[in-house]
């Protein structure tokens, strides 16, 4: 079918392809020496040092992640006003992860290889973190991840400044147990965090004589909850443990109230509802319900007063601060402290300097654990008030050492 000329072209193309493919054979998976190569090249030449901010600025996660970006920018601004890091101003480069996991991977690679950033701050969902993890490990570059998550992970190139399960979910369960609640019903969105969290909750419940009366998942973004709420009501559990994310909470709590269930009769403990989400769900549906976090806007202390005041001055009086925002703010300061202790932006030196670094964070004093690269945090159970703010009803008294694989909990031995 090809004309003569076409035949010739086709032959040339075929030959070209063959040569290129045959000659270009790189390292095999078995030769471990070549894998990864040298560490990330960081551009330290100018008077400024670049860092990447990787958040979803569009798509379903934008509502939450934009607040994290704002908080990161606030920290950068404050540090620059105080003279920067090692005499260099921080130059933030923002990229949009677009709530799409392969895009997160693409953008993190861009920040590392094109912008040659010293560190990247951001990601929210576990799926986005799992997508970028190989990119950071491959390039030996740093990610600071600011959101509570399901644990069972410890990448050498990620610092986790949000809570792992033993700093949020386990204290939440301890609180319910102390309140005499002997049965729970689990409701969550259908993705990795709720499913893993519920696995941990079930193991805890079994060891602590608590009954799990049911476990239901709704697709992310689902707004149909009449069936689930009816099942919850019929089960008659003492409390509900809620790992729903985003908009689904609005529909769930409306349905919950419509079914006649109350915070007094069957309280809901939520782990993904912070001040920003309370605002969008509506306090009339949430007042009296419980949350488990490490920080609230109302948390006492001079550091928090300063943080809240600075945030509101920059972004508006009506803008609340929340746990992930605080963890993001803290992550920039921790990175600064690590770099200054190391006296270098070099990733390996920064990592080596990380252990034992402390910071007077808005949530209280936090310490970086050098082994797990998580930070110690105080667990706080809060009650949502009529004004949309969350007030603390219980706290762990002291900062809890991070234990991402729950090694210190005998009941969790079968989990990982």
């Amino acid at each position, binding site marked *: 079918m090809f004309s003569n000329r076409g035949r010739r072209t086709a032959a040339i193309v075929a030959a070209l392809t063959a040569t290129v493919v045959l000659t*270009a054979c790189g390292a095999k998976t078995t030769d471990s020496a070549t894998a990864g190569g040298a560490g990330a090249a960081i551009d330290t030449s100018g008077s400024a040092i670049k860092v990447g901010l990787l958040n979803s600025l569009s798509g379903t996660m934008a509502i939450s992640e934009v607040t994290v970006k704002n908080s990161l920018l606030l920290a950068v601004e404050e540090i620059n006003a105080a003279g920067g890091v090692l005499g260099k101003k921080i130059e933030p480069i923002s990229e949009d992860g*677009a709530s799409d996991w392969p895009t997160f991977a693409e953008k993190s690679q861009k920040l590392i290889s094109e912008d040659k950033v010293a560190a990247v701050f951001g990601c929210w969902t576990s*799926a986005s973190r799992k997508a970028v993890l190989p990119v950071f490990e491959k390039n030996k570059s740093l990610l600071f991840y600011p959101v509570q998550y399901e644990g069972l992970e410890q990448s050498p190139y990620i610092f986790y400044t949000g809570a792992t399960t033993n700093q949020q979910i386990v204290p939440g369960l301890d609180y319910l147990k102390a309140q005499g609640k002997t049965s729970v019903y689990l409701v969550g969105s259908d993705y990795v965090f709720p499913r893993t969290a519920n696995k941990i909750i079930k193991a805890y419940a079994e060891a602590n004589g608590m009954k799990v009366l049911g476990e239901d998942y709704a697709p992310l973004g689902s707004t149909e909850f009449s069936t689930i709420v009816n099942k919850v009501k019929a089960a008659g559990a003492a409390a509900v443990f809620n790992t729903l994310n985003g908009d689904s909470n609005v529909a769930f709590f409306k349905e919950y109230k419509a079914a006649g269930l109350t915070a007094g009769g069957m309280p809901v403990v939520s782990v993904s509802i912070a001040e920003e989400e309370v605002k969008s769900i509506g306090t009339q549906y949430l007042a009296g319900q419980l949350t488990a976090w490490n920080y609230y806007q109302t948390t006492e202390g001079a550091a928090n007063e300063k943080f809240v005041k600075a945030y509101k001055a920059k972004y508006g009086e009506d803008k609340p601060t929340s746990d992930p925002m605080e963890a993001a703010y803290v992550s920039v300061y921790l990175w600064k402290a690590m770099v200054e202790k190391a006296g270098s932006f070099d990733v390996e030196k920064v990592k080596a300097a990380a252990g034992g670094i402390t910071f007077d964070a808005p949530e209280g004093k936090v310490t970086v654990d050098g082994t797990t690269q998580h930070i110690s945090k105080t667990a706080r159970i809060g009650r949502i008030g009529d004004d949309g703010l969350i007030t603390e009803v219980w706290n762990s008294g002291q900062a809890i050492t991070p234990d991402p694989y729950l090694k210190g909990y005998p009941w969790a031995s079968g989990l990982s």
Partner: protein
Amino acid sequence: MRLLRKPVTGFAIGAVLLFGVAPLALGDFRLDLLAKYLCFAIVAVGIGLAWGRGGMLTLGQGFFFGLGGYAMAMHLKLADAGPGQMPDFMLLYGQLDELPWWWRPFANPLFALSATVLLPMFTALLLGLLIFRRKVRGAYFAILSQALCAAFAILLIGQQGTTGGTNGLTNIQGFFGYDLNDPVNRRTVYFIVAAALLAVLALTWQLMRSRYGELLVAVRDGEERVRFLGYDPANVKLVAYVAAAGMAGLAGALFVPAVGIVSPAMIGVVPSIEFVIGVAVGGRASLLGPALGAIAVAWAKTALSERVPSAWTYFEGLLFILPIVFLPGGLASLAGTIRRRSRPSAVVETPAPAKVEVTT
């Protein structure tokens, strides 16, 4: 003769650009991105065939892309884990003692490789037989194909222990024994993708120029008439649909080593629509239009989101609307339009015929 020569020249130029200019002009990172765009272009060529030539608005190519992608990723995950071992995420999320039965055959590289293309084609064949024999077409066909990929994405998310759920299959280290972290090997992956695109283009060109191609266009423009001529339109459409599915599966399979991840985010309704947008922008009825459109749209997405991270989606939307409003034939018809406008003859005065067929 002129018509014949043009695609050949285009083919040669494309080969030189892909194999000569691009690797020299682009850094490692940009070349990786181009490999990703070329995967989308392979899907687009298939959509061009099924939609542009066959009139079937395939809004669910993400389904076939996903089948191919998961088939490849499952094999690579098993290869990473080593013989007899389970992939890392299964140990983390699943409560399984051994590999599920439907994972096992993918340990065989030959099975996995052929499954990436044959599995989507076989599924498309079954679906196509049901759909086309019952004369489902138009909007109903589009809705059906979309429902299919939505259902597939939900299924994958629900089975976290065995499919990785929303995370998908990530952290893929090797590609048939070659370390994907090595830039040399990543470059090889790019060449494989580029060669696959050229092969798919050549195949589609042959299909379009053959008697079958004529028949396909005839079915698009007047299905009943073709039926009265004694052909069975269902079979004609089936071939294009199955071919498009095979191409989407191949693209999905190549996407995995090129990007290193496959997840339900690449399969659902939105990515499936994005595939079609690229085709519409490029010009659905031509050979190169869909491929160029897909590359252009993917490139624009990257470029715009790097320049204006907080407002790029508006520009992207504008970019979709403008060509479709002002260039219904897509970018591929741009040259023709300019030629018509610049010719100082009566052609300028007479409005373009309502049904300008874009020739290739």
